């Protein structure tokens, strides 16, 4: 999978592929017109890179870096950032504090490498004082966060990019179905013309299996949250890479993978993350929310 964009003619559609947001990305255009498909793919590729650049926490030239290094000073934000913060706030409230974009800092003391290496309790407790969305102060034009705290849009930005790109595709070509798949987070701009659905392969949640799982999607969004490659295993207990922001400890007994179909990719992604945070109650949560979902649990024991 190349970093640079490649476009190729497939059987009945045109596919664009690139690597971004730490994922293999693909854009499928339900057209055989190379010129139009090329325009769509390049616009979406540009949009994807824009969002990655703006919200990656591994860069030093973006708004996230500015906010995280402001040392309690006020930082001006634009409308897009305000809207993402607002969505994060909604999720924080709906999940009663479990979905928290300030919890990424806890990752400092945890390395989820499949080993039995749990974090030191004291380290975790120190970091907990730097976690809590309610400690942020933001409005439409600016944000102030306590020194030491950090925002991580990782749980939202990729799904957001998928939806932005699907919407952009719809605006560019209202009559052409476009599937946007960034690392298994998927949205379709509109139904296909000549077949009922798109069929795409997404990585199998079990890293032992190198076959893709085929997914059929007609419209809407699909997102997967999982820890297939990122977990700790100690005394027969599987520790998820998803951390409980209230205790700083990994969620126990979460499914290896949760896939949710939703109105759009962002909604599906948030629901799948919230389901993981439910641990052993993940399936029950999704049933209660009456969303279409697939949970996979693996036995490594």
């Amino acid at each position: 999978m190349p970093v640079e964009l490649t476009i190729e003619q497939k059987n009945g559609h045109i596919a664009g592929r690139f690597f971004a947001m730490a994922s293999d990305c693909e854009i499928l255009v339900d057209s055989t017109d190379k010129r139009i498909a090329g325009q769509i793919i390049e616009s979406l590729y540009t949009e994807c890179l824009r969002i990655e650049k703006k919200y990656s926490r591994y860069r030093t030239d973006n708004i996230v870096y500015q906010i995280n290094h402001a040392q309690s000073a006020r930082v001006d934000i634009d409308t897009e950032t305000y809207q993402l913060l607002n969505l994060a706030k909604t999720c924080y409230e709906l999940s009663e504090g479990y979905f928290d974009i300030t919890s990424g800092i806890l990752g400092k003391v945890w390395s989820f490498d499949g080993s039995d290496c749990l974090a030191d309790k004291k380290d975790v407790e120190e970091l907990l004082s730097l976690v809590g969305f309610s400690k942020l102060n933001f409005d439409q034009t600016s944000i102030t966060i306590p020194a030491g705290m950090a925002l991580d849009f990782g749980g939202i930005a990729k799904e957001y990019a998928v939806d932005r790109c699907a919407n952009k595709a719809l605006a560019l070509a209202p009559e052409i179905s476009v599937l946007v798949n960034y690392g298994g987070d998927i949205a379709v701009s509109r139904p296909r013309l000549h077949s009922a659905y798109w069929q795409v392969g997404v990585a199998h949640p079990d890293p032992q299996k190198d076959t893709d799982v085929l997914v059929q999607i007609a419209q809407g969004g699909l997102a997967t949250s999982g820890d297939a490659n990122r977990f700790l295993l100690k005394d027969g207990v599987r520790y998820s890479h998803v951390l409980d922001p209230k205790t700083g400890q990994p969620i126990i007994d979460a499914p290896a993978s949760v896939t949710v179909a939703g109105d759009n990719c962002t909604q599906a992604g948030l629901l799948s993350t919230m389901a993981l945070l439910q641990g052993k109650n993940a399936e029950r949560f999704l049933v209660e929310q009456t969303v279409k979902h697939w949970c996979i649990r693996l036995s490594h024991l």
Partner: protein
Amino acid sequence: MQLTKKTNIAAQLATATCVLLGSAQTHAAPTTSGEWQFDTAILYYGETDRVSLVEGVVSATKDFGDDHIFNGKITYDGLTGASATGAVAQDAVQTFSRPSGKGGYQVAANTTPLDDTFRDSRVQLNANWAQPFSSGIAGGVGVHISKEYDYFSAGLNGNLSFDFNQKNTTLSVGSSFQYDQIDPVGGKPIGLSSMPMRPYSDYDDDDEQSESENSDEFYDSAFTTQYQSREKSADKNTLDVLVGLTQVLNRRTIMQVNYGLSVADGYLNDPYKLLSVVDTTGVTQDIVFEERPDTRTKHNIFWQTKYAMNNGVVDVSYRYMQDDWDIKSHTVESRLRFNVGESGYLQPHFRYYRQGAAEFYRPFLLANEALPEYASADYRLGEMTAYTLGIKYGQKRANGDAWAVRLEYYQQNPQNAGFAEPEALQQQDLYPSIKAMVLQFNYSF
């Protein structure tokens, strides 16, 4: 994470993400089931000196999600008044038996004979289910049942629609089957047989009981025997098939073309309709019951175009119907909808209808000619033009409910389809016009 409150997080996230994405919901996703939606209507239809009808409708619709929609409807009609029997006016008083055979009534000179025993109420129940099957294919099924004093009807229907050409074209096919049973008051009269008459009596318009005092036993028993020997009920079956094509022409225009075939088989007479048998001078010699063929095949072609203006909708349609009774009809109809203010609309309505007579339509029969195989003087089978002029105003309320009121004027002008009139009938109005007003009020919540 163990949530303490059970809230619909999925729905709230759907809303929140749509705000974020700055768009209306572009992804049609599985919708959750909605609330019951009720539509109610009350309609008054009144003809001058003829029939008046009050109809109430309550319709309930529920979307069970993903366009799986149920609709149930109950309709009540209350009908009173009189309609033309088909007999011609005379320059002398005429006497008729009531359909039941129990008594009779008199019609004044130079007056169109009306059957004023018209009093009925009808209840109809409908149920329909519609759902999509797969991408671009949807279908529905329905049943109805209706009952009035002398009539019972039940039917089944089904339809399928196929979208293609980027959903710009829809092909629809539908079919329905209906069974009707009529139990005419006084039994089923034999077509073209004479209306039984008592030999003499003081027939009274108002009080049927007074006839029971009638004395001539010989004629009286012969008279009642005619009714007793009649079949009590008759039925018919109707099969309808429809094929339609709907095409989106551009962003503002949609066009529809339908072909419909209807085949009816069974008792197609109106048991209460009569014909006068007149001599060469036009004086009535006999009154007979009508007789129609027992099959009828109708073809119709319907074309409709709707155009969306900036502040309203233009809707124009045309229908051509032809059947094997040789009736041909043309209907031109137009509705213009103008938006008024934020939430209201005004809709003028115009309809013009023109019909040629059935081949067996006869305004009267001549006594010196042989009885035809079929004959009916029912004005609904004769040559006529009709038009409707109406206006409707509707408004959506702040709470989402909607109401509308409709007022229409209808006039039907039957015409002579080329029958020479004997002298005594020339001074009579054999083709009286019917004028009616319709007032309807709708409320949806």
